[in-house]
């Protein structure tokens, strides 16, 4: 098994090292990092805005570029939170706690340098996990019938919506709303036009780009316009030589890095617990086992290293269900999966077999991309720091242009730009009503496949709903769903809040996920 994995990986490196692929990967990392550094631009907004740039590229190049954008943006967010105390992305909220004090002490460079290293370590472990676990999962998943796929999707949807932040009921409501939005358009099986309200433009359904950019672009700008205070870049002066950590600092970080990796990969394996939870757990663990827990929050290197490693290892691990089962764990993965679908590739267990170039190329490009990330960030840190100080008033109008042209370029259709405006308004209303719009994307991407498999399962079982509990694998998934809901209800009734506390400063950025 190990030898086949290595052969496949070797093949993957062959794909990823093709000149044009390596170029797309590089562009993705560079642009993702650049946009991700900008205050207020989380990975979701960054990927949505940059998604249209990949339309003209072949599927392999496109997905490599988008993956590059994703971890570039992730690292950019870390820079933002360490130097400015601004968590653009929820997993980085805990990084601020010790990262910013370090910056105040003039050690921001060291923290950034260590973050580069630990993102590489965490990601490497996640990639290794992916190489060995994904083919195994595929073997299992290929045996699944429509009933199993259905209940697995149900589990994915439930986990994605209830374990994210905010009220679980609201999360589920958002997922259902997403499923509904996925229904709009022509029904594949019968050709009936559903919820198009007589508009022929809606026959092909709501465009993923329009949805993503409406929710994470326009709604987000409406939320932040005139609310973002001038960034305090007083401490954000980092030079290249500040970034090299001393031997003692490296020694101090090895332990946390190791623990962070483990926590991150464990969180990735439990569906629904993405990088945010991983980083919070990592920080709490590190604080608990530290000999000087009272010093946390005043600039402990461990408090930066451990959560950052956990985040990266968990993000990488999230790719496993996404690529091998076609079931994304969070909105970022849903967006990547949507991008694959735009390229005409059907996600699911057959993906690795049918498109080995995509899967193994992607795996190999993770390593290449992460090395690029290290190489890029060391010399360019000065430029990133300058980018941090770009005022929001220049940022969001420029982003608006990218939103408009991006949606237009998807199908050369002005109608969809209007669609984005409507979705933006809806998204903002939902934000104000205390909903987190991220699960909408999850439901939207999975919706059509869920319906198709549900129909098929019902046809095979002659309309007997018991099929979901009669087939053993499906029964396990259904049981897990029930367990999940039961736990949520239990937590609710006991009146205890989930152990994840939201640190101050995150509230305003909450929707940025």
């Amino acid at each position: 098994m190990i030898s086949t994995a290595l052969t496949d990986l070797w093949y993957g490196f062959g794909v990823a090292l093709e000149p044009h692929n390596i170029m797309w990967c590089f562009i993705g990392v560079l642009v993702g990092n650049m946009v991700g550094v900008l205050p207020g631009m989380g990975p979701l907004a960054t990927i949505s805005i940059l998604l249209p740039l990949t339309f003209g590229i072949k599927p392999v190049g496109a997905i490599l570029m988008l993956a590059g954008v994703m971890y570039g943006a992730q690292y950019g967010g870390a820079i933002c939170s360490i130097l400015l105390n601004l968590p653009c992305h929820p997993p980085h909220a805990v990084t601020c706690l010790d990262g910013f004090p370090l910056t105040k002490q003039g050690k921001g460079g060291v923290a950034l340098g260590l973050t580069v290293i630990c993102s590489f370590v965490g990601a490497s472990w996640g990639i290794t996990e992916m190489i060995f676990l994904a083919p195994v999962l595929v073997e299992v998943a290929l045996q699944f019938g429509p009933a199993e796929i259905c209940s697995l999707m149900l589990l994915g949807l439930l986990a994605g919506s209830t374990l994210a932040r905010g009220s679980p009921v609201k999360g589920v409501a958002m997922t259902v709303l997403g499923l509904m939005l996925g229904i709009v358009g022509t029904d594949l099986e019968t050709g009936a036009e559903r919820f198009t309200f007589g508009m022929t433009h809606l026959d092909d359904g709501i465009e993923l780009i329009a949805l993503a950019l409406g929710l994470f672009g326009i709604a987000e700008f409406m939320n932040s316009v005139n609310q973002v205070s001038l960034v305090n870049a007083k401490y954000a002066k980092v030079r290249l030589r500040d970034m090299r950590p001393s031997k003692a600092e490296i020694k101090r970080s090895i332990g946390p890095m190791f623990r962070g990796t483990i926590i991150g990969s464990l969180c990735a394996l439990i569906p629904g617990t993405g990088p945010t939870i991983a980083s919070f757990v990592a920080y709490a663990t590190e604080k608990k086992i530290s000999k000087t827990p009272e010093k946390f929050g005043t600039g402990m290197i461990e408090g930066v290293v451990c959560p950052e490693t956990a985040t990266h290892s968990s993000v990488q691990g999230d790719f496993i269900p996404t690529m091998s089962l076609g079931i994304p764990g969070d909105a970022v993965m849903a967006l990547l999966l949507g991008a694959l679908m735009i390229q005409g590739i059907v996600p699911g267990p057959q993906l690795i077999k049918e498109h080995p170039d995509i899967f193994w190329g992607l795996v190999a490009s993770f390593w290449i991309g992460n090395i690029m990330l290290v190489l890029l960030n060391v010399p360019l840190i000065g430029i990133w720091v300058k980018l941090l100080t770009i005022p929001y008033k220049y940022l969001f109008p420029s982003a608006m242009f990218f939103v408009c042209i991006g949606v237009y370029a998807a199908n050369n259709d002005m109608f969809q730009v209007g669609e984005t405006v409507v979705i933006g308004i809806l998204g903002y209303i939902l934000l104000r009503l205390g909903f987190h719009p991220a699960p909408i994307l999850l439901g939207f991407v999975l919706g059509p496949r869920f319906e198709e498999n549900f129909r098929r399962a019902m046809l095979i079982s002659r309309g007997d709903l018991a099929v979901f509990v009669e087939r053993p694998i499906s029964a396990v998934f259904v049981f897990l769903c029930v367990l999940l809901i039961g736990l949520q209800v239990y937590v609710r009734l006991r009146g205890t809040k989930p152990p994840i506390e939201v640190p101050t400063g995150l509230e305003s950025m909450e929707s940025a996920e």
Partner: protein
Amino acid sequence: MEENLRTHQHRARIHALGHGLLRKRDFYAGALMILFGLVMALKGPGYRTGTLMHMGPGFLPTALGVILVGLGIAIAASATTAAEGEDEGILPEHPEWWGWACILASPLAFILFGTFGGLIPATFMCVFVAAMGDRTATLKGSAVLSSIITFFGVGLFHYVLQVPMPILTWRGM
């Protein structure tokens, strides 16, 4: 005495319930979900629901609609238990009507100028209108920003990515 106090508290709570509910964010959140659910559940059967074995196109929408109505009721009900004095405003403390209008008008400007004038005017107006949404924006500053974005944007999207949209026409498309 104690009994009296309790009934008093009870009455006060009921009083607060009636008045407070309409100011609760969750109440409206639930109401909105119920509305969406009803639209789906009522319009769904019109597409033919079929039977479980042979599902019609209306089956899932109807089912989802019913589920969403249920979730909406649960959300609205949770508004009664939410603690007093939390941030329950639906509008933010300082509503940014002008900023919101500018952000929403910006894509509309893109559509309008894009349909009738091409990529250059569309880009310029899109950025310009959005830029005016900031409280400290000036006409000159916004114009400069829009020109820069137009220059690079047209370069990137027309020449590099070759988005099929005329650069400058009159009533073209």
